[in-house]
């Protein structure tokens, strides 16, 4: 017995919520990628001046902060839950008998 | 030449009786009363034959027999074993350990003499 399949399409508000959550999940990945970038342009051989690196890193930082703040405004705390996919139920084959 | 016999027995009356009829038969008789130093007595006196009691103070006659048979010097020494415990198990054990003759007390003096003569033919 399985719960009935959830409806295929959500109303507009729920849809928006899900996308905001997706963005919240993606944000740190974006941060990682952006902060790894200077390593690449540093590896180019010609060392970049420290001031430029600083401006870049702090700029990314500011961007992340702003994005995070914007996302929390968009995230509806009431629907925090139940979006996580359930763990696959453990099979009963591993019972000790 | 006289044959010598060593009686290892803790009951003095029994020793005296055996000594009496063996001397009469022309044996040279010695006796020893304890178990723990019986082996030393046998080695010291080197008798032609040993009469050995099973229940001895200090050490069992069975153990003494085992030691005798383990020693090349005494492996062939004729041993007549006497026991007051009339159990077949003792006899089996003694025979497995290589006793020459096994007799149960009370014995007939004549039987003992016969046995000794068989063990030591002239």
């Amino acid at each position, binding site marked *: 017995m399985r719960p*009935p399949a959830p409806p295929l399409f959500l109303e507009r508000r729920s849809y928006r919520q899900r996308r905001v959550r997706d963005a*919240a999940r993606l*944000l*740190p990945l974006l941060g990682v990628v952006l902060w*790894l970038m200077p390593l690449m342009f540093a590896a180019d051989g010609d060392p970049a001046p420290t001031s430029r690196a600083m*401006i870049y890193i702090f700029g990314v930082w500011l961007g992340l902060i702003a994005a995070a703040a914007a996302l929390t405004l968009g995230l509806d705390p*009431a629907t925090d839950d139940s979006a996580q996919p359930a763990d696959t139920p453990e099979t009963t084959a591993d019972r*000790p008998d | 030449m006289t044959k010598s016999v060593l009686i290892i027995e803790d009951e003095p*009356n029994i020793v005296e009786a055996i000594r009496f009829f063996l001397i009469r038969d022309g044996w040279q008789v010695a006796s020893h009363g304890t178990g723990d130093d019986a082996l030393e007595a046998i080695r010291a006196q080197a008798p032609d034959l040993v009469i050995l009691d099973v229940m001895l103070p200090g050490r069992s006659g069975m153990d003494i027999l085992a030691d005798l048979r383990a020693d090349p010097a005494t492996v062939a020494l004729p041993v007549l074993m006497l026991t*007051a415990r009339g159990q077949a198990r003792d006899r089996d054990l003694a025979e497995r350990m290589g006793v020459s003759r096994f007799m149960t007390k009370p014995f007939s003096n004549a039987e003992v003499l016969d046995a000794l003569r068989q063990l030591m033919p002239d």
Partner: protein
Amino acid sequence: MATMNILVAVCLAYVALLFGVAFLAERAARNGRGGWLSSPVVYTLSLSIYCTAWTFYGAVGYAARSGLEYLTIYLGPTLVMVGWWWGLRKLVRIGRTQRITSVADLISSRYGKSGALAVVVTLLAILGSTPYIALQLQSVTLSFAAFAGEDSLTPPFGDRNATAFWVAVGLALFTILFGTRNLDVNERHPGVVIAIALEAVVKLCALLAVGVFVVWGLAGGVPQMLARIDASALTAFQPDGGRWVALTFVSAAAFLTLPRMFQVLVVENADERHLRTASWAFPAYLMAMSLFVVPIAVTGLELMPAGSNPDLFVLTLPLSQGREGLAMLSFIGGFSSATSMVIVASIALSTMVSNHIVVPLWLWLRGDQEQGALGAPGAGGDLRQLVLLARRLSIAGVLALGYLYFRLSGGGAALAAIGLISFVAVAQFLPALLGGIFWRGATRTGALTGLCAGFVIWLYCLLLPSFGAGILPQAVLENGLFGLTWLRPEALFGIAGLDPLVHAILWSLGLNTLGFVIVSLASFPTPLERLQGAQFVNVFQHSQTAQGWSGGLAQTEDLMVMAQRILGPASAQDFFQAEAARQGLKGYLPEPTPEFLQRLERELAGSMGAATAHTMVAQSMGRAMVSVDDLMRVADETQQMIEYQGQLEVKSTELARTARQLRAANESLTQISVQKDAFLSQISHELRTPMTSIRAFSEILRDSGGMDEAARQKYAGIIHSEAIRLTRLLDDLLDLSVLENGQVSLNLREGRLSDVIDQAIAAATAAGTPLAIRRNPLAAAITLCTDLDRLVQVFINLIANAQKYCDAPRPELTIAVSVRRGRAIIDFVDNGKGVPRAQQEMIFQKFARVSDMKAGGAGLGLAICREIMARLGGTIAYLPGQGGGAFRVTLPLRAADTGPDRRPDRGPDHAVDLPAEPLV
């Protein structure tokens, strides 16, 4: 220059301010007026204990040495905070629903409340935090010294050690006062939190002030500053990619796993919604803290004399420019950074130490002494006091450890190095932590394996080499342990050329994760682990938010899912539709009104019983930590396991019992058989020996003529005495047999004990063996009613034994009589060697003979005595420790005739009844 006195005064005033704020906050919280205490801003600011003195002073030093690399320490936490939706949200929710008190508690709870894991995590945390605390003490000490100049140090801060000492004492005091004021179930400390929030503001302002001064005051604006940076001695931006990534990763990990960070992030979190604010506000705080680091470092390198410590530029730069007020602010900022870290770290560590080491130990010790006393009333209060005491002592202990480390290390190493070593230590918790909250398959054994592996590598590759040649010999550093080059601490398995720090991070976390995953995959968790695993991993599916305003339909939906499983989809949907219609609603989801819930319960009870239905509805509506489904599955499985084990146990218990019975029966039979054999053998021997003499001598007398008269007389005499011996033996055997079978009837008479003793002495000493007997006839002047003849027999036996066996040159026997509680006690003590310990019980057995001496008896005497005494309702026993052979006879003053049929209880050596027949 500011005098030391002003500095101390400002310090004390600042500390007093902290005390006051903490005190007011505590009071407000107690009076229920503490709403403002738990605001998102306070939460965010409390997170700032991540920025310790290491940040305040050390970041500038770090930048001066390695350029922008210091930023990685703040990029990691920023990523964690920005990615709060992934991990922190879950961690905080778990911490709240499970009432987690520390990172050790989290890991141990997740893995089946494992005590071993908690201890390992606690120890590792202490080991990792001690250098860090020492680092804070060092920074305060250094800043004091820098401020005042080495020479002008005055009491009470006489020298550096004293400074560190007094700072440690003061911090311990503050922490104990506000950290262990009470035992809150939530382990929250509003006073401490508000104090560290205040300190967060102070240190941020201080650093910003210095930064502003440097950029606009000294450099003259941002463009000029940037130009100076590019022109400075700082190397151009050319980061080591490995270090950059590894440090970012480790600082992100440590941000989650540092005990103090866990404390403020999870434990002190009063409301999950605060996390939303902190997710962007705390990165902003970190950015602000890092912003002026490079400008300060560059300006310091430029302006300060060569060789000055870059770790102190934040302080020395304003000082050198004559800005004493700014320097004072900077000093207070550094002081704040250090103290807030130490306070929270020691609270977190003391919670771990007391909860996971002291209390379990105490319970264990106590359980040893008085089992089950824990449930006793009053135990709770006891425990409370104990926990508080343990916390306080742990706080003092943690600070003492930090101080000790400070003294021992000499405070030489650069701040950044120590901090990173601590980070890598606590980062070892990460696999177990993340695995625990995201992976149901993670097991206790796996976590333990990973932690231990990571810990060992951290110790070997990072901590020990950090002491230089002090602990690890130079040979090990260069050639590896035992001379094995693949065990070189800085190039494990021959992988050389890596930065030592990156190398240690790579190997420790790599092998940690590998061990954790592999062992988890290979092992099987206990039911408790699985239950906890489900609760942790699926925390969002089964726990409501604290607000619960989402309530309503979502809960009804849960109920519908459950009802469909139980009633079947069709009838469940019909039922829900009907209920919705009854409420005037369309669709399938009625409001969860009490009426609806009651009807649902009744409906469910039809298929599963009322109690279960009630529980399930309650679970779905209430704050179920596990879904009913999970609960049922685990319960089901547990039940099955229990049943299965139970069946096995019943079976094996039965088998074992049968086997035991069989074995006992067999043993008893064997024993009977052995005893019977031995007994028959003995009787045979005892009878045949005299018979042998009799037969041999009678044959001699018969067959040998001509024997002299003397010999004849002698031999006849032997026959006679042996015949008597035989008779006596038969008598004894008969006597014993009769006694043992209870066939003897007692001849009870009244008489005086002294007469009985007289009689026995007379009979025994008739043979003439010399034995001095000492007795007190007056004491024996008591009247007995017993079988006097039998008693005489016992006494004769004992006296005769003394005659036979007492080996003293002048044998002496003392007979002492006393009466106690209606029983006469008669002791026979001689002055011989006595009976050896091993044989004291044996002598009462039949045919027991202690010495090789032919005593004339068959060894039945004492056996008969014991039987007689048993028949008389008394005892006879060997009495050790009397300086000689000693027997004690006790008997009732008036014997009850037990009659010939009832046999008195006999000693254990008579457990086997021997047939009477062989005896006669």
